[in-house]
């Protein structure tokens, strides 16, 4: 007997659509109505929120900061993540799976705990600062609270485990024999990575980078906890606009701008990857 499997999938589909499209519809619609104070929205359709957003350097700076911070953090994550993923994927030792399990487990730890850990590491009288002071490498203890660099470290900490897991699976798809072929043909280790591993991993690196970028763009907790009200990324600003100022219309507008910006970056990157693949005679 054949069960009507597609029909079993209908309820989850409806639920997912309701949650995704429904919530999106609510804030998309909200963004086109003026705030009347204490959470009430005007009846008339208006572009006033958008006009205000794009006229006010405060909002634009926040958008620019969010994009910049996400891009730089993603680059850092990739720079740290690619070698780690490569080594893990090529490891023959029985510690390989253990290390991978540790990284997977780390990705499950809530960012609140991770930020707590960062605060301990960067405490004014903590081990790291004392060591650096002793060595004379710094004059003042390093702090992360309220600093852009601090938020970047927090975001890196937040996304690294995910990115390493993604890149690990990318590296696994590159046959080891290609490395041997390159070496046999005269390529040093460095040249082999440059001419074979990196080009082959590039589409996967870009895809992983996108996921990291999206995670950063939407990251609230680390930005709010480490930024301490001084680093206002869009997600932090949305929360403040909605909760403190009860400007639901403006909050919705900021959310739409965040979403559209993220979408644009993603579309551009996907276009880039498919061009890259097309140039190699592969179907994207």
């Amino acid at each position, binding site marked *: 007997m054949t069960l009507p499997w597609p029909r079993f999938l209908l309820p989850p589909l409806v639920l997912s659509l309701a949650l995704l499209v429904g919530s999106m519809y609510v804030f998309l619609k909200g963004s086109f109505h003026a705030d009347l104070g204490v959470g009430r929205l005007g009846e008339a359709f208006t572009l006033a929120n958008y006009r205000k957003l794009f006229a006010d350097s405060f909002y634009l700076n926040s958008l620019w900061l969010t994009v910049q911070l996400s891009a730089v953090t993603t680059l850092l994550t990739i720079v740290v993540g690619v070698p780690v993923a490569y080594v893990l994927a090529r490891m023959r030792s029985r510690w390989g799976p253990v290390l991978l399990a540790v990284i997977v487990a780390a990705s499950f730890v809530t960012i609140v705990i991770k930020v707590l850990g960062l605060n301990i590491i960067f405490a004014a009288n903590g081990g790291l600062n004392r060591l650096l002071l002793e060595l004379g490498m710094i004059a003042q203890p390093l702090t992360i609270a309220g600093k852009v660099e601090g938020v970047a470290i927090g975001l890196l900490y937040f996304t690294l485990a995910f990115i390493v897991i993604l890149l690990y699976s990318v590296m696994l798809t590159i*046959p080891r024999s290609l490395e*041997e*072929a390159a*070496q*046999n043909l005269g390529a040093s280790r460095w040249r082999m990575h440059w001419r074979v591993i990196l080009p082959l991993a590039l589409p996967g690196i870009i895809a992983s980078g996108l996921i990291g970028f999206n995670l950063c763009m939407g990251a609230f907790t680390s930005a709010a906890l480490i930024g301490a009200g001084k680093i206002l990324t869009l997600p932090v600003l949305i929360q403040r606009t909605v909760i403190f100022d009860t400007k639901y219309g403006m909050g919705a507008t900021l959310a739409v701008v965040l979403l559209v910006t993220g979408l644009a970056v993603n579309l551009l990157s996907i276009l880039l990857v498919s061009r890259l693949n097309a140039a*190699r005679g592969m179907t994207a």
Partner: protein
Amino acid sequence: MAAVMLSGISKRYGDTAAVLPLDLSVRDGEFLTLLGPSGCGKTTTLRMIAGFVAPSTGHIAVAGDDITGLPPQRRNMGMVFQDYSLFPHLTIADNIAFALVERRVPAAQRAQRVKELLELIRLPHIAGRFPSELSGGQQQRVALARALAHTPRVLLMDEPFGALDAKLRETMQEELRAIQTSLRITTIFVTHDQAEAMRMSDRIAVMNQGRIEQLDAPRTVYDLPRTRFVADFVGKINFVDATVVRRCGDGVEVDSLGLRFALAAANTAAAGDRVTLAIRPERLYLAPVDEVAPADALSIEGAIEHIAFLGNVMHTEVRATDGTRLLVESQPADWTVGARLRVRFRPTDASVLTEAA
């Protein structure tokens, strides 16, 4: 192009020995095949020559230079891998030119060399394509061209035709042999396919459990196998127990199958030793019981137990009067199971295995 010399090369992984200490000298321009079942150490030996596996003991020299400690990229060898390992992100021209780029050959010379090689493998029109657009046989040829581009001193091949179908494999074998002969490049070829080894090699090293059991020309390996393993691995063969009666000149006189006859023997078996004789099924002939045998032939009586018709030949299993089972390969004929007959052979077609029975 150069001679390759392995002295005392071995490889251990923990407690297991992949390759026991072995010596092997590959002559300049020779096509030498490492033949054996999987796990015999043939691929490990090849990978030690390529530099991907560090030997536990011993030295490797090419044209007299010790290369044991050199990394793969500085050994100037060309290797064809089992799965071709073409770079999927590079065009065929760029794949072939890979080693030339590493050696900083100017672009114009690179293009010229790629053109030459594409003509050598008779695929001049595919320079701009990607590996995924080629058939298995074409990828195989490109892999060969890529391995030859930088005129390596030695060509290494690890079961390169394993993934091809039987017909294509034969064509590729002939093409490879023709290219190898014209370039006179020292080639070390790994395979588990004895027919492939026979067809292409100048010499075959038959490997078993990390050892080279016999190193000889294909004809000698087939006709005069030294050990039971070699005899059994290369083609079909009959093993017959025998007792040495006495040594005579270069050979021995033996008592076997209820007969007494002399044959050549390289080993040192002495009178009274029990030895094993090996004789190929196609060296045995079926004859009617009453037919008179030629003067140089011996014969033994028996009955047919089983017949298998294989098209061009027929395999007949005969149980001799002393109980020995013999496999005979002959032209298809009208024998029937149960028929009594004589199995005839020349003593010179049998060989004495060196190992004790």
